[in-house]
């Protein structure tokens, strides 16, 4: 269950309430069902361009972003819809963005997963990978310069670790011990390229040579991802610097909806399907945390109804006014990003307020 796992993975967190656990499952379900809905809209020809999802990787973006406080900041990538939802984006604005509607997060300026809700503390990804690792490093630099107990979190795939900007981000963050959490999603492929053509040695091994810990966890176990992220965020907040968390998983869909995945060896999907993060966690909630099958089914039904509602809302959203096409190239003034939602019970009202103050 934990390829290259380094044994540090905590499988059952002591920092989660029943409500937290339900919240984790809820967001994984919300991601899965929203992306399935997006794919349907794509097949119906309602999504211009291409379609990308993170099916099979829901535990990673949900489990890691769940540790964040309101004032923390994120650069969320293309397999990480769950992190957008955890931070407060609603599925309607995600679906509207895919459809290029005015109601999408970018209002039609950018598409698919290339968005971030500035009012929720998120900086929208660029396509060039892994550029956002440097941007997150810069956010963390600001936190350190101002001595603020805040964390920047960003994500990237294993293929992106071959790019020079990845190295520059790791090295810079290591030198200045910046409060940034790097979540590496090793989903076995970069588009069609298998890991043996991306690197000779698993990139988690590099972390130490940048001067900070690298930990490998089961990316399909949301609590294990949560625990590694919680420790990393604490470290960062305490001024001890970055952490590289490698989450082993498998990209269960094509790179994009057009990709037939011919290149994936026989049996790999089947093997990983047995380790579906949502089924896995649902079973665990029932087995170990006093949830009933009915609780889980009810939650799934509730989320499904909500996503349906959001899809309808997205479809009602109009196309943007062509006049905006030439607006906004330059900013009139700088304004701070808003704060993100922090659903983890740890961020109780007063703690959140205290932090904002």
């Amino acid at each position, binding site marked *: 269950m934990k390829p290259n796992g380094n044994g540090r993975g905590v499988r059952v967190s002591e920092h989660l309430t029943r409500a937290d656990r339900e919240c984790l499952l809820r967001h994984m379900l919300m991601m899965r069902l929203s992306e399935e809905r997006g794919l349907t809209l794509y097949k119906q020809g309602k999504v211009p361009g291409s379609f990308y999802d993170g099916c099979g990787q829901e535990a990673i973006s949900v489990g890691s972003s769940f540790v964040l406080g309101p004032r923390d900041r994120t650069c969320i990538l293309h397999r990480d819809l769950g992190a957008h939802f955890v931070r407060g984006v609603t599925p309607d604005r995600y679906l509207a963005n895919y459809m290029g509607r005015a109601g*999408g997060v970018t209002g039609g300026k950018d598409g698919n997963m290339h968005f971030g809700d500035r009012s929720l503390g998120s900086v929208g990804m660029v396509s*060039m*990978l892994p550029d956002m690792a440097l941007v997150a490093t810069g956010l963390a630099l600001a936190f350190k310069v101002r001595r603020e107990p805040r964390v920047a979190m960003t994500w990237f795939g294993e293929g992106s670790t071959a790019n020079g900007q990845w190295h520059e981000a790791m090295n810079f963050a290591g030198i200045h011990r910046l409060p940034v959490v790097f979540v590496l999603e090793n989903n076995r492929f970069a588009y069609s390229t298998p890991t043996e053509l991306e690197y000779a040695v698993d990139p988690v091994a590099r972390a130490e040579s940048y001067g900070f810990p690298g930990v490998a966890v089961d990316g399909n176990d949301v609590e294990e991802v949560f625990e590694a992220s919680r420790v990393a965020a604490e470290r960062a907040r305490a001024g001890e610097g970055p952490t590289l968390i490698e989450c082993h998983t498998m990209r269960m869909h094509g790179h994009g909806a057009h990709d037939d995945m011919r290149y994936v060896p026989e049996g790999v999907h089947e093997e990983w399907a047995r380790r579906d993060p949502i089924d896995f966690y649902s079973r665990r909630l029932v087995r170990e945390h006093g949830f009933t099958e009915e609780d889980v089914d009810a939650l799934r039904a509730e989320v499904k109804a909500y996503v349906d509602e959001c899809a309808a809302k997205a479809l009602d959203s109009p196309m943007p006014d062509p006049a905006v096409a030439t607006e906004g190239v330059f900013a009139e003034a700088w304004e701070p990003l808003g704060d993100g939602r922090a659903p983890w019970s740890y961020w109780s009202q007063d703690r959140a307020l205290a932090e904002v103050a």
Partner: protein
Amino acid sequence: MAEMTYLQAISDGLREEMRRDESVLCLGEDVAGFGGAFKVTDGFLDEFGSGRVIDAPLAENAIIGAAVGAAIEGLRPVCEMQFADFISCGFDQLVNVAAKLNYRQGVAVPMVVRLPSGGGFSGGPFHSQNPEAWFLQAPGLKVVAPATAEDAKGLLASAIRDPNPVCFLEHKGLYRHVKGEVPEGEHTTEIGRARIAREGEELTVIAYGSAVGLAERAADELGESIEVIDLRSLCPLDTDAIVAGARKTGKVLVAHEATRSCGVGAEVSALVAERCFEDLDAPVRRLTADDVPIPFSPPLEQAVLPQLEDMKEACRELLAY
């Protein structure tokens, strides 16, 4: 001759060259096992083997830098940027290493960088750019941008045989929409020569890439005597053809999909201003994308990129001048 799409012509030209010269090799992300994001090198791995069709890691400077080294040693690397937009990630190796080695050290760098460029299908800000003007500000690079299937094959073959680094702009919007008769077997098109795509007497549209077809369609629909020049080669530019075209009709519209400021259109306009002052009956006009990132949503993208109606309008205005 055989009917093929622009995309097939690129594949065909590349395959022909790889068969002809075993020093030709393909290097890029997903070009081997997957056959390239746009399937240009589909089947190449089987035919030519993993020594000549190489899946690169996600590292554009590595792709271009490794190609420079391999080219110096006598290979003929054809690099694929998965999208032209990603050239910004290999920019330094291209403009400072590849472009300048022959001038500085007398070391020729025979390589091609294939750049799937252009928009029109909601690619958004990072999958729609037309970076050609950057290359004209980096002396030492040749730059070609075919508009037809025949030239796509011929210019790619010529680019591969050229002893210099050549940026090959293949417009994604033409991949499947442009079809034409293409010579089978070996076929080259001289780099540096423009092509008269359509004869006319009243107005000369100087264009390249996706703007050529737009100009031809506009001319047909307007039913006016409009000459359309397809530059094909942006560096070197065919100054003679530009000057002749301007002199012939006395009215010039320069058209391209790339953004406006300091684009190739500005260069052509400046050349005409310098060389044809006495010959013009109207101001040289430019039809280009606005100076904004290329937006994703169809109505926004259409507002930014030159459309057929814009082309017709620009022609009408100049004809009426």
